[in-house]
């Protein structure tokens, strides 16, 4: 196998096999980007558990447990947007532009709804409970940093989806070539998955 053999029978089939599959380089690159983004979140989650286990109990003295019910409703909104995003892409693949646009708008609205919910939760914490980013010890630091990072990702996602919608209205994508939409969908699901982790570690355990 390792010996230099000049063209032997079968070599050309091997070569053809290797090059016939048309693969989109951007998809792989984007997935790798999501992996490295995931490591960023993982590092902060590691920091959260490290600080959480450093004594004192959790939540630290003087801080109430977070409101699970409200966050659960908000989570359902975000997961719902994941479903609508999925159907938006499916409809695009099948050429149903109107349904695609409808689901896309639904996703954007649900995403904005989630952000609104998060803003409400932040306001509640800061105004009523006086829990702040810098002034409430490691609880405020880890909670606001991680959910803030996630919220930032959602905001970027909403803007990106809006741009994608405009692009598809202007005919940038076709039924065969729609990498932007695939990337948007992947990104949106990624944001969902991160939220599953954050919801579990902040509200459930």
């Amino acid at each position, binding site marked *: 196998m390792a010996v230099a*053999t000049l063209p032997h029978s079968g070599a050309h089939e*091997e070569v053809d096999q290797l090059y*016939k599959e048309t693969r989109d*380089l951007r998809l792989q*690159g984007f997935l*790798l980007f999501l992996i490295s983004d995931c490591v960023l979140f993982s*590092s902060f989650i590691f920091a959260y558990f490290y600080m959480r286990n450093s004594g004192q109990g959790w939540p630290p003295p003087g801080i109430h447990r977070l409101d699970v019910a409200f966050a659960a409703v908000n989570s359902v909104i975000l997961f719902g947007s994941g479903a609508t995003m999925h159907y938006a892409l499916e409809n695009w693949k099948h050429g149903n532009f109107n349904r695609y646009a409808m689901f896309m708008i639904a996703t954007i609205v649900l995403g904005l709804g989630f952000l609104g919910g998060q803003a409400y939760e932040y306001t509640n914490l800061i105004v009523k409970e006086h829990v702040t980013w*810098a002034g409430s010890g490691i609880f405020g630091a880890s909670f*606001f940093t991680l959910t803030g990072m996630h919220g930032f990702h959602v905001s970027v996602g909403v803007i990106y989806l809006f741009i994608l919608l405009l692009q598809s209205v202007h005919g940038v994508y076709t039924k065969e070539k729609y990498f932007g939409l695939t990337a948007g969908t992947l990104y949106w699901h990624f944001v969902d998955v991160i939220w599953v982790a954050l919801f579990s570690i902040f509200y459930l355990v």
Partner: protein
Amino acid sequence: MSTAAVSHGGGIADHIHPEPQGFIRRYVFSIDHKIIGIQYLITGFVFLVLAGLLAEVIRTQLLHANGGFVSADTYNEVYSVHGSAMVWLVIIPLITGGFGNVIMPLQIGARDVAFPWLNMLSFWIFPVAGLMLFSSFLMGAPVAGWTEYPPMSLQAGAGTSMWAAAIFLVGVSSTLTGINFVVTMFQMRAPGMTFTRMPLFCWAQLATAPLLMIATTALAAALAALFMERQFGVPFYDPTKGGSPIMWQHMFWFYSHPAVYIMILPAFGMISEIIPTFARKPIFGYKMIAFSSMAIALAGFMVWAHHMFTSGLAPYLQLPFMILTFTIAIPTGVKIFSWVATLWGGKIHFTTSMMFAVGFLALFTLGGITGIFLAAVPFDLHVHGTYFVVAHFHYVLVGGSLMGIFAGMYFYFPKMSGRLMSEKIGKWHFWLFFIGFNGTFLPQHWLGMLGMPRRVPTYDPQFTFWNQFSSISSYVMTFAILLFFINILVSLRNGKKAGPNPWGARTLEWQIPSPPHYYNFKHIPTVYGLPYDFSQPLPYKGLEEELTDTPVAVGAH
């Protein structure tokens, strides 16, 4: 006769794009991987000069037991910026962005990397971040060493925030490069170039790229937290607010231990190219060298806490981290023995490049062995934070990575410029560097064993002799590096014409003109075997027109 019959499916760079015209598009904001690689090399070497001058400030300060060359505060700033710059602005960019960009796409038979525009972005982040790091001197540079442990890094001047931002940006650049390289090597290899036919330099880059992509992001989190704590008072590391300084050490070393493999694996790769070429012998243990790179990269993620044996790490964690660290010696030993076995019975040509490669073998082995010492908890407790550690990592980073970079420069300079570097100046460069390097760092082993702490501007007078020996040797080393730059400048103008393949090497990049055309290959070649089988015919087809004047049609395959 061409391989155009083979259908090319994937790559963006599958057909020939017209070369951009105009100086700016060609040499400044270029998307050509070769130009970008050379930009990385030039920028990295500029930072090498700056960080090297800082090293000379350190050595000059240590000429006398009482110091006196700079103040103690300045001394802290100097060694902190020296370390940070050498790691993030010199070795990593030179060895990944520099050589990786210039050589890797040529070796796999591609016309460019997967995302040329992203590549340009990666590069341009890097000099900006470098300027930010050095500008931190204007506002009170970081003082806690390149590791910037809190609480000291929390208390230092504004420059530490600048440091964090600069390193974060370098990290973004590294991450993007890593993504780019992984996709390039997975998707853009020439037909027939299976993974087990890929040159070993590419294997080394393939092991490095995931480290760039994954480990660097972990550091980004640690830096972001440091930045937030310093600028907005968000508690992460301050123990008085519930944070933990040890947490920084975990997050920092979870990146920075893999980072030492980022700095050494590509050098391994270049050595694996240079040694068979100048021994005129097939490389010994191709697959073992390739897989050991992967093993090192993987194991590199599981050993970070060996930097923290004196930081209050739980005793039951010390033993596993010690043993895991020892296991890294196995794949590394596989490589060393394979290179030695390649040399065994070969017809060795002692060009400058080969001398640096053989020097690398000796020095890196020494540095690796002291690494095993340091991994042993009882020994580490004794010498932690002393000059023994300084000697150890300079043996692997200067004796290893930097020697690898020099070997690679002498080897690949003809491919980049079309001219050979002067062997005469090169030999002077090698011997002065080799002697100066050992004179500088060998005595530091015993200074450390005797208990001389690192990062202190003064020392006990009993250490004076070896410190002066070390400092004077370091001037020799600096002079050798000056010779290297003189050699580059002289050879660019007056060097002998190299021709396509001055070394008789067999990988793809040597089968095309030096410097290569913008489009690299007129026709993408087909690969039928390993590139290291000296005495066999070349295992490529479709290269017949590469060295002729046949014009290429833009848009052709």
